[in-house]
Each structure stands twice: as C-alpha cells, then as structure tokens.
C-alpha cells in the first residue's frame, strides 16, 4: 500500500502531533513509575525497540477470552508490522494505562480502540519522519519498513528504543487505516496462548512462584458474620512446615513453607466461632426480596403514559412475574494470589480483572499511598466477572505482612463457592395492555435488584471486612439496570428499577449482569404477548421493531434456524417428549451489539428434564477482529447460560452458603451440551462492539419460550429444574 504524506506533514511534522524522537527510553523506564501511563500518551500504549519489536501495553487483560491475540491483531494491523512482532504487557499498574476494569465486553470496543488510535498516531508520526529522511512523500510500509524514492528506513531505525512523546488529542484523532486494506484484522488468527496451554507450558497465576515464597491458606468462618472467639493451634505442632497462624480480628490464616502443610494446617487448626444467622429462609427468598426496602427507584425507557393505557377500559391486561436465582461465578481454578511487602511497597500478583482498582483497595486496606502498591496481572482461570481473585489478593497481602515474606494464597473449592461475591437474586413483574385489535398499547416492568453505589465498583475485600481493616463500603452488583428498558416501539412504556437497599450476599457482576436477568423477563414477556395475540413470536418482534440492523438480524436468524412461521404453542404432538423452539432478541444495552437466538428444546414429560439439543445464534457486533475468537466467545456464552438456566442455583441456610462444591452446585456436563450454530454478521466499516457477554443475554428467554412452544407451559423461575418443570406442567 502506498501512503500519500501531505507536503505539510513531511515538512513540519504530522498535523497536531508533536513529535519528539529525542527522549531515550531505556534509562527513564528503568525507574519505577517512569513509564507514561496517561491515556493521552502514545508511549503509554506502545514502544518499539531497536530490533523493531513492538510492545503494546494494555490495561485490559485476557480472562481466557483470547484478547491477547485480538489486541495484537489490532496493533499489528494499524502499524503494518507482522503479527508475531507484537508483544503484549497487560494489567500491570506500573506499566499499563488504566483502561478500566476488564468487564462489560469492552476490551476490544474501548481498550482495543484506544490502542488502535495510539498505533495510528505512532504510524502517522513515523511516516512523517520517514518522509523527511527519504525526501519523498510517496511511501509504502511493509513489515515495519517504510520505502520511498528507492530508499528504505525501518521503524527500528526511526524510533527504536526511544519515546514517541506524542499526545493523543481526541478532538483531532489520527487517521486510522481503511478497513478495506486490512490483512490481519478480520482474520481467524490462531490464539497465541493455546499451544502452551494444551502442553502444560503456560504459567497461570496458580503456577506462578516468587523466590522465598511461603504458602498460605485461609480459614473462613462457618457463618457469615460469625466472630472468631478462640483459636487452638496445638494440633499444628506435628506439622513440620507450619510457619505461623495469623489471626487478625475475624480473619484467620495459616502460613507454611510448603503448600500441603498449609492445607493440613488450615484443616487442623481449631477455631471457635460465634453463631450467626443473618440470611433469609431460602424457601422464602422472593418474599424477602419483595420486602426489602427500596433505596431508590430508577425509571428507564419511558414513553407516553403506561399507567393510563393499562387502566383504559376494554384493554386486555397481561401480567407475569419472573425470578432469577443467585449464581456463583464458579471458576474452575479457585482464586489464587501472591503478595510481597518489601521496602515499604506492596507488590501483588493476581488474576484480578481490575488491577488498577485493586491497587486502590489494597492501598486503602494497608494505609499506603497508591504509588506504593503495584498490582500485576497473571492470567488465572476464567472469572466471568468479579469473582474471588481480588479477595485472594487481599488474603495474601494480609498474610505476607504478618510473616514478612512473600505469601501465596490458594483458595479451596469451598472458599471459592462459599466466599466469592454472588450474582444477586432478581425479581421482575411485567404488565402489558392489548387493545381490541390485538395491538400492544402499554408495557411496564418493575425490576427488583440491589442498589449500586454511584460510581463505586470496589467490591469490599473479604480479608479487610473480616480483619476490620479499612474497606470500601460499596454495594456493587454492576450496571444491572441495563436492558431493563426495551427496544420495541410500543406507544406507552416504562421500566422501573427498584434498587434495593441490601441483598442476600455480597453482590458483584457475573457474566451479563442485569442484562441477562432483565432480557430474560422482557423477552419471555414478549413471547407471552405474542401468544396472547396468537402471533408468530418472530413476526411479533418484527412488528414492533424499527431498527434496520435488528430487522436484518432477525431475518437471517429465521433463515438460519429454518424458522417455521406459526404462533406458539405448537399443536400438541403427544408423545413422552415434547419438542419446541423459542426465539429471543436484544440490542445490547440498547446501543451496541445485536444478538438473536433460537433454542430447540425437548421436554421429557415424565421426568421434567429439559434437553437443549441445538441453539442458533446470529450476532452483529460491527467490525469483527477475529471471527474464530468471536465464535469461541459466543459458544461459551451459550453453554454457560444453558447451564445457568437449567441447573444453577446457589443454596444456603440461615448462616452460610451450602453449595460448597460441584456436587451441591452442579453445572452443565458434556452430555447436556447443545450443538451451537452461529452466523456472524461482519461489518468491517462499522465500529467493533463488544462480544462475550451479549450473546448470554438472550439464552434463558430463548429456552423458556421454546419450552412454552413445546408444552404450552410457561416457566418463569430460573433455574428450570425437573421438579419445577413437572410442577408447572401439573399446574397447567
């Protein structure tokens, strides 16, 4: 490709960019904190060394989603360097810019686009500099070498080992490459991490070690809120590796010089705790939710006057209530972290999705200035939101401080299931009015969900709470209001989020927070209204949608799933196994990724067991960076959400979580895994939007609607256990 550099660029630099190639990077960067981190500096995101190797610095981290590959693709493409020449440093508070938590399917959409812009600005500056050096403005770039006028100069020669010193001005963004010229973006580049992961060469957080490190285990209370009354460590004397039993307030931990002795020590230490019964009766969970004080009512998607339209004479009013159980993240690898206090500085290694936020929390907990805390990301098992990684980091820090040596804390399975924060219970009441012509004239929803501390997403650290050290007092379920409002054009609509003062467990975000629960209720209720008006469910959605991309997606979904146009339920086919199909659709947060899904289900009438043999998904997230990585994420969203819809429910008694292992909190197993047929809509000239969690939003409702199609029975309480299915069928 030949790039035309304007005469002005060639003579005076590159437009608004101030280019300085004079700052040596090596010496400055060796000093702690010296590397630029501001989101407005190219050097925050990018360095090119003397060998031409490109290092990209990303505050967004890879949680097993493949973004280390996708971000390299974006950078390599924009810089015109080979993919293999790009290295990536992620989630290190000393080296990477704070691009926000790795959440909300925003890594490519926000983080990747910041990196793309930094690369575009860098490339523009390099071309301008090359134009001066080569004496021509007719330039081509191949593999990091700029050619023009029969001469060549490489990126390494121009910038190698030096700073760009370019300020990014959002008002005058650098011109990015035209998508028609893409060679790397949009291609299914194989993931860089998979060969090492499948051969045991990859270093996960759980494998990571530092010199002189000890092993810690925590001993959690048997009840939430229980006080530690006494500790007897007599039994630990026979365990040779024990270093110290650490007690601070209600925090108890054991440190040993080897891992197995730490485990034995934690098992054998005798702790006496006060009794504590702070949890509601699980059988009456929804009464508890309904009775919880509403701290604030938030109104979304208000049009017209829905109350008046619902009260209008002659309309048919349809009502339904949906509930969605408490879920745990359930990482396959329990949380793990290492911490070291040295020379007044705390270094924390963890698999936190939010190292910059964790730094603030650890600084608060240990009364240190933030610059004395360095948090470094090391990839762990998938977390699907804010799980226990940050809590393990706090545990490790507390133990490390107590013993004066680096300590690694590995949570047990029971620690993870029992103490990671939970996806809160959600309850939704829906109402709609249908006029005599079968048109929807009103739509209302009341969504019961915990409040969110304004701007405060620091989920309190368990170790801080137990020990009595300073902790954030945020209630942070995430932006769970999203997708409570709908994208359909009904004349009178109103969604109200009733933000509850408190909830059962320490809440946090778990994949597709709120969007899943809200879309579940909205899209099931859409199906109920389609049935109430004897309309084909797909046709019903089209009737009320005026979004071109959404309509195209529904059309392609109908073709992919070979959708048979008819109202639900299907005419009773008889037999012991009822078969049906259900559809669901959403525009994520009403402003980005479009997803539609069709579920095929089989319901065993005698046992109440639901099988989901197949899912069809059509997905439009705009420009696709890596189609195979995207499919992998969509498949994951479908599988995990089939599991959450059919199986998962956290159990508890009045004191504590009782789902403490995989037997008491089962998840999807291979024989239950559906086939997943995906169609990607690629729009290279559009912005790349998020993928990963959007697809999960439509899965529960698609299943619910398919069960109704099969059996004529509505399921409104997640999970759809065989007992609930049987009860619903008997009641109908």
């Amino acid at each position, binding site marked *: 490709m030949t790039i035309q550099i304007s005469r002005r660029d060639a003579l005076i630099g590159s437009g608004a960019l101030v280019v300085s190639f004079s700052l040596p990077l090596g010496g400055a960067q060796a000093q702690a904190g010296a590397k630029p981190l501001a989101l407005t500096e190219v050097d925050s995101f990018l360095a090119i060394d003397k060998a031409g190797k490109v290092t990209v610095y990303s505050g967004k981290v890879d*949680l097993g989603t493949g973004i280390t590959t996708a971000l390299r693709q974006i950078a390599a493409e924009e810089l015109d360097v080979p993919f293999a020449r790009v290295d990536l440093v992620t989630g290190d508070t000393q080296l990477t810019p704070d691009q926000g938590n790795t959440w909300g399917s925003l890594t490519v959409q926000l983080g990747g686009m910041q990196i793309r812009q930094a690369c575009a600005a860098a490339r523009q500056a390099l071309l301008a500099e090359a134009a001066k050096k080569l004496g021509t403005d007719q330039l081509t770039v191949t593999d990091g070498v700029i050619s023009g006028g029969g001469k060549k100069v490489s990126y390494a020669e121009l910038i190698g080992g030096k700073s760009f010193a370019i300020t990014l001005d959002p008002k005058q963004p650098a011109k990015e490459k035209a998508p028609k010229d893409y060679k790397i973006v949009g291609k299914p580049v194989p993931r860089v991490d998979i060969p090492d992961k499948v051969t*045991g060469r990859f270093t996960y957080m759980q494998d990571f070690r530092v010199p002189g490190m000890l092993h810690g285990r925590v001993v959690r209370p048997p009840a939430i809120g229980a006080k530690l009354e006494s500790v007897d460590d007599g039994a630990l004397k026979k365990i040779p590796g024990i270093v110290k039993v650490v007690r601070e307030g209600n925090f108890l931990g054991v440190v040993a010089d080897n891992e197995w002795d730490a485990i034995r020590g934690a098992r054998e230490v005798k702790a006496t705790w006060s009794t504590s019964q702070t949890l509601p009766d699980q059988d009456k969970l929804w009464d508890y939710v309904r009775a919880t004080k509403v701290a604030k009512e938030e109104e979304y998607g208000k049009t017209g006057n829905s109350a008046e339209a619902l009260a209008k004479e002659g309309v048919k009013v349809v009502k339904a209530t949906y509930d969605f159980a408490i879920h745990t993240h359930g990482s396959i690898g329990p949380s793990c972290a290492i911490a070291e206090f040295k020379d007044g500085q705390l270094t924390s290694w963890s698999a936190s999705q939010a190292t910059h936020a964790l730094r603030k929390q650890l600084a608060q907990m240990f009364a240190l200035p933030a610059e004395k805390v360095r948090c470094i990301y090391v990839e762990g098992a998938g977390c699907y939101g804010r799980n226990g990684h940050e809590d393990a980091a706090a545990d490790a820090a507390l133990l490390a401080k107590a013993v004066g040596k680096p300590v690694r804390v590995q949570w047990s399975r029971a620690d993870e299931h029992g103490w990671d924060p939970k996806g809160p219970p959600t309850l939704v009441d829906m109402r709609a009015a249908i006029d005599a012509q079968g048109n929807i004239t009103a739509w209302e929803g009341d969504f019961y969900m915990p409040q969110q501390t304004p701007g405060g997403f620091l989920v309190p650290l368990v170790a801080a709470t137990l020990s009595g050290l300073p902790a954030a007092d945020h209630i942070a379920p995430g932006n769970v209001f999203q997708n409570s409002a709908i994208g359909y054009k009904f004349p009178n609509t109103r969604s109200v989020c009733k933000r509850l003062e408190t909830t059962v467990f320490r809440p946090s975000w778990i994949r597709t927070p709120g969007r899943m629960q809200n879309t579940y209720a909205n899209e099931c209720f859409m199906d109920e209204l389609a049935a109430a008006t004897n309309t084909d469910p797909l046709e019903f959605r089209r009737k009320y949608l005026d979004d071109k991309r959404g309509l195209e997606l529904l059309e392609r979904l109908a073709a992919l799933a070979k959708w048979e146009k008819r109202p639900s339920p299907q005419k009773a086919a008889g037999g012991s196994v009822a078969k049906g199909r259900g559809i669901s659709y959403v525009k994520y947060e009403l402003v980005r990724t479009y997803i539609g899904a069709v579920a095929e289900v089989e319901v065993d009438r005698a046992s109440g067991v639901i099988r989901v043999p197949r899912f069809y998904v059509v997905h439009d997230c705009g420009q696709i960076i890596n189609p195979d990585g995207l499919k992998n994420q969509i498949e994951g969203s479908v599988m995990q959400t089939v599991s959450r819809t059919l199986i998962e429910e956290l159990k508890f008694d009045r004191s504590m979580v009782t789902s403490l292992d995989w037997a008491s909190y089962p998840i999807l197993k*291979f024989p239950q895994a559906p086939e997943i047929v995906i169609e990607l809509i690629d729009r290279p000239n559009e912005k790349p939007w998020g993928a990963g969690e959007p697809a999960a939003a439509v899965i529960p409702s698609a299943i619910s609607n398919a069960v109704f199609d099969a059996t004529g029975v509505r399921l409104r309480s997640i999970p759809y256990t065989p007992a609930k299915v049987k009860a619903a069928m008997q009641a109908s």
Partner: protein
Amino acid sequence: MANKSLNVNGKRVSVAYDDPQMPLLYVLRDNLGLHGPRFGCGLGQCGACTVHIDGAAVRSCVTPLSAVTDKQKVVTLEGLGSPQKPHPVQKAFIDEQAAQCGYCINGMIMQSAAFLAKNKKPSEADIKNALANNLCRCGTHARIVRAVKRAAAQA
C-alpha cells in the same frame, strides 16, 4: 522427611515428603514444578488435575502419594507432548482452538487421550460420555468434542 522414587514422564525422580497422604497433585506441582495437572477442587469432581497412571486417567488431587508405586508410570500433560512435538490430541486441540481460559484443558486432554487409546472409533455420544466428569466453566464443550473427534479420526 522421607524420600520416594517415582517414574514421571519417563524419568526417574526422587521426591521428599513428610505426609504419605499428600495427594500426587502436590508432588507433581510443588516438588516437580509441573504446570499441566491443575488444582480445581481437591475432591475428584472436576477433572482439572487428571494425569495418567499406567495409561489410565486418574484424579491426582485425590490420589495419595502412598498409593503410587515406583513401578507405575505417571504421565502429565507435559509428558504427553510439547508445543514443538504435540501429542495427536494436543494437536487436535490446537487445530480446533479448543480452549478459552484453558484451565480445565489439562483434564480434557488427559481424559480424552486415555479414552482414545482404548476406543478407536467413538461416536460423538461416546466422547461426551467419556468426558462427563470433566467440568468446563467457559463453555468450550463444542470445541473440545470437535477436537477429540478430530484426534480420533486421525488416529
């Protein structure tokens, strides 16, 4: 502290231990520094810790060191193959890009390799049943099944 001789990945190794009840998982990970077998539950419920003992897939998190003899051949994911010379099952997982976080993948590969060694032409249902006690939370099931099918077809 006592010592025990083991055969791990074709090599004779000596491991120092205090408690004979220490699970094999900790011997492999902590004494020998291996990364393949992973701690997932410590209860034999998830399969992340799976290794081969004389070719059989075994949960190393619930296998005490005392139950392993020096005659038995212990093989971990590292011993199965390397990035340069992957085992056919490992290669199939790369070809199918069958991992998300990859934490469970050790178990998936070790379980599948042991299964395929005895079942040459498995159906899709056979594969799913063979992996029924291996858990994946990322939802990579479809790719894992495709990878095992691919490995079976190439065997």
